[in-house]
């Protein structure tokens, strides 16, 4: 924690800076049961809450005491005053902290892990502002609200792991909650499938954000090369790296397609982000992804 403190502090300030550029993001819960708690923000539908939502004509089954007499007196029909339904949803975030994420092909580019953490925390802050509870999946950091939770998140996100490729963790995700997985997803696809299926089985919907380095996309290598994974556990030697490019890119495209298929099947959303692009655009996309999630439910 000692050395992580300045890092987490800077990470948080940068995340705050990113988050400050977007309007508050309202998450939308599709399921009530179990996970729904009243929050201070309306869900743009009628429900239990303090704030006014809408007047609607009285329907059969409405109790008389629900009629808003002041409004009804101004017209012939009778209206019921509905209040906005306010809930707090729990969102679980998992960010890959494996060695593979620490790759950066150029000094000018941030490592993938850096970008992934930044995006994750920015989203967490937006969600927090919107009144959601945010936690980390796979760790003992349950979803909570408040600035202190942001501090804990920032601190927890700075931990690095030594394993070569990370696997999404579905533990710690509340049923019918929402989840955000950020990784390069270059490791074992089965682990991703398992985690995603497990999450979807529990009614969790979420976003899969794949963060890639431009070099991983373009494969600009030539000549006799020994490729090693960041942790050094995997190794592949080639005599002409340039000849591998097409096949590598085909495999990468296949991996992306597989992830997309996986998401479609489980109702998740898939996003791709390159570290050479701006973090703002990725955050915007995340924002819209959450919007789309709600829109789809609407």
């Amino acid at each position: 924690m000692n050395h992580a403190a300045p890092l987490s502090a800077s990470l948080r300030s940068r995340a705050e800076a990113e988050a400050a550029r977007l309007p508050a993001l309202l998450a939308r819960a599709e399921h009530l049961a179990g996970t729904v708690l009243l929050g201070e923000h309306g869900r743009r539908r009628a429900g239990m809450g303090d704030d006014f939502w809408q007047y609607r004509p009285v329907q059969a089954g409405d109790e008389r005491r629900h009629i808003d007499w002041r409004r009804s007196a101004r017209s012939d029909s009778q209206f019921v005053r509905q209040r906005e339904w306010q809930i707090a949803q729990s969102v679980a975030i998992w960010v890959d902290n494996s060695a593979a994420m620490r790759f950066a092909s150029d000094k000018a580019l941030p490592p993938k892990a850096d970008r992934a953490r930044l995006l994750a925390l920015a989203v967490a802050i937006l969600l927090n502002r919107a009144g959601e509870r945010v936690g980390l999946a796979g760790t003992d950091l349950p979803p909570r609200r408040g600035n202190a939770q942001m501090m804990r998140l920032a601190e927890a996100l700075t931990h690095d792991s030594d394993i070569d490729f990370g696997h999404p963790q579905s533990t710690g995700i509340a049923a019918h909650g929402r989840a955000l997985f950020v990784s390069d997803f270059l490791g074992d696809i089965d682990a991703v499938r398992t985690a995603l299926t497990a999450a979807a089985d529990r009614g969790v919907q979420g976003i899969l954000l794949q963060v890639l380095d431009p070099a991983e996309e373009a494969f600009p290598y030539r000549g006799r090369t020994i490729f090693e994974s960041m942790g050094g556990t995997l190794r592949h030697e080639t005599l002409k790296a340039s000849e591998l490019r097409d096949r590598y890119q085909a495999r990468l495209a296949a991996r992306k397609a597989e992830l997309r298929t996986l998401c479609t099947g489980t109702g998740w959303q898939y996003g791709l982000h390159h570290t050479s692009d701006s973090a703002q655009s990725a955050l915007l996309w995340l924002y819209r992804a959450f919007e789309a999630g709600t829109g789809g439910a609407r």
Partner: protein
Amino acid sequence: MTLGAIGFTAPWLLLALAALPVLWLLLRAVPPAPVRRRFPGVALLLGLRDDDSVTDRTPWWLLLMRMLAVAALIVGLAGPVLKPQQDEAAASGPMLIVLDGSWASARDWPTRQALIETLLDDAARAARPVALMRLTDPEPPVFRAADAWRGLLSGAAPLPWEPAPDAMVRAADMLGEGTFETRWLSDGLNREGRETLLTALRARGPVTVHESPAPILGLRPARINDGAVEVTALRARPGTEREITVEAHGRDPSGTPRVLATLPLTFAQDETEAQGALSLPAELRARLSRLEIAGQHHAGAVSLTDDSLRRREVALIAGREDREGLELLSQLHYLERALEPTADLLDAALTDILPANPDVIVLADVATLSGAEQAGLLEWAEAGGLLVRFAGPRLAASDVSRSEEAPLMPVRLRAGGRSVGGTMSWGEPKSLAPFPEQSPFFGLDIPGDVTVSAQVMAQPDPTLADRVIAQLSDGTPLVTRKRIGTGQVVLFHVTANAEWSTLPLSGLFVQMLERLAVSSTVALPDLAQVEGTTWQPVQVLDASGDQADAGTLPGVDGAALVTGPVGPGLRPGLYEGPDRRLALNVMTPGKVLAPVAWPASMTVTGLEKPAQTPLGGWLLAAALLLLCADIAATLALSGRLWPTRAAALVLAALLALPQPVDAQEIDKALAAASEVTLAHVLTGNRRVDETAHAGLRGLGDTLHFRTSVEPAEPAGVDLETDELSVYPLLYWPVTPEQPIPSAEAYARLNAYLRTGGLILFDTRDADIAGFGAASPNGQKLQRLARPLDIPPLEPVPADHVLTRTFYLLQDFPGRYAGRQVWVEAAPPDAERVEGMPFRNLNDNVTPVLIGGNDWATAWAINEAGNPIYPVGRGYAGERQREMAYRFGVNLVMHVLTGNYKSDQVHVPALLDRLGQ
């Protein structure tokens, strides 16, 4: 070994070329080394196979490039030489290089050295053993590998003498048996023994002579003749008319060695001798230390001078002075005035003077001498002294040399003398007759106003006519002379004052004295005089004509000094004996230079080395370039040479190239010109330069705090390149090892001084040395300042404007509060006006300020503003530092405001005028 026009010094190395095909196969078989890359996407690569299962081979052009590089390396190391010199005479067998090694070889020694190196190169190429023999110092020849001689070559430098005939014979005996080729590097001068050696050499093999066609010049020792220094130059070969310049070197009054005079000499067509006379004022002549033919750097063109040209000692003795206090009537007044500039005057009793052995003794109206005095004088005169006597009332009244000639008088005198043209006598005052041809005064102009009204008369004697060297128009002797032993006695028949004649008032008197005094030159001592004495060398000449301190060389016998030729045991130079100094020159007075007449069958060539071009360096450079290209190509092939990175590297290399000097210089000058910038001269000694910089920074800060002068960061100035005119003040710390600036730099410095710049010279040694050449720094300062246009200097007078430009100061301490500080001298007519506190001195800034108080050290501060060096002790030391700062402030104020404070003198007068 040679291939066409190319020869090789190490041909066996070429065998390595046979290994090239093997190398080709090896290089082909080994693929380029793999690059290790960290890459997370490796998980996707697993299982992918290369299409081409054959290894990625090195491309053929890269292989070719490598082959070429290696081939160039091998050939380069084999030492290829274009057009190697072919020796048709003897391309094998031992070779003997014979050097004359005399002073006459010293002039072309670099050329000779180059020739010897060429010969050694050739011998090395042909694997011939070589021996070197120097005839001035012959040793039995030892044949060794040519390369072994290279390091020993500097030890074979010429010596300042010629091979003696017996040395030549000895050398011929040393040659031993066996045959060898001989290369003789001759100096071109004929001498005994050459034939003997040549015969011995030719008996053992072919002989080639290398000789410079440039004529050898020599300078005989200078002699004094009729008051002029007679210079004779010789050349070995008669030829066309040629003009040479003889430089007279000596120390000027400030002790600085410089060229005092030059004398052009002309060798007439087909003449081998050129003569000339250097007419110098006696004052200058006494300062001569050596004569040298300009441009000839060998000992034969140098003639050291000794006591024979030095200032003479003259003892003046008058009869009893009974008219005390009347200076113009004093017997010695005119003599003193006439002799003072040219001679050292001794003033004591006669018996006290004689042991000092003066060159000249003048007796003015001294009639009788005591027995001891007379005996002493006689002995002294016989040993070469010049006794000059003047007549006078006392001599006329005495009986000296009346009936018979006194030993110390040239003639017998008649009683009473005579008086003409006076109030009580008939006739007109007599004038002088022209001087006879045998007289030493011959040729002097006689002014018309020289008249004689009284004289002592000589008795007619048979010898009288021979002894008269000047006479009056009526034929009566005025000056007579008699030789005594090697000396002489001269009698002026008039007084030494203006009582009897107007002669002492005229310039003729001075000229006559000069002729007489000059003709009493100290002659060479003869053998008998120096027998058994030991002479200590003071300075010795080397072969190139440079003087050096003799150090611990042993003394030599006087006899050898007079008779013997110079050689290993008797080096040319300046020797100090019991009572005088003697110069021993390479060229003796009777020496003649003659060219060698080699037999017609001999091969005689010049010293030029044949044109041959070693190619090894070029080939090695080409190999290096190819290897560099190989590095780039290999990197490119293995994908490690990223185009952007390569471009960046090339760009960085381009940027790292030095900017054009002009731009930098102009920037520096611009920066200096935009603010007041104090500057210090870069000495090359880093520590001194840093101290000077810190010192000027400290002074700048002080100025900043206390005055309205706010200098910029001080600048270090390189005299060779930097523009000086933008700096008001140059601080020049003197170090013994700093280089003397070039002539162009001095031209700029002089322009700087003339246009109001100021140089503060600091010898930084006031703690250990006084002013002058006492310390290494002082000597260096003299050498540095010699070409500078510096006016006469004086210690800072108490009313100099420097004492009050800002602070009122009386002394100018730095780290040392040592000695005086010197500035431009006040004009001689500067006088203190009544009512003014100080004189009106120079109207501009003194161009130099010279001292040794190490000011920069006292001023120096570090970045934090704290003094770097301690000054003195405790409070007194801090006080001294404060005074140093005050001196600095005053100095900068003086530079910037000139004599503004001096002009303040006029303020009362101006106010007064305004009031009316």
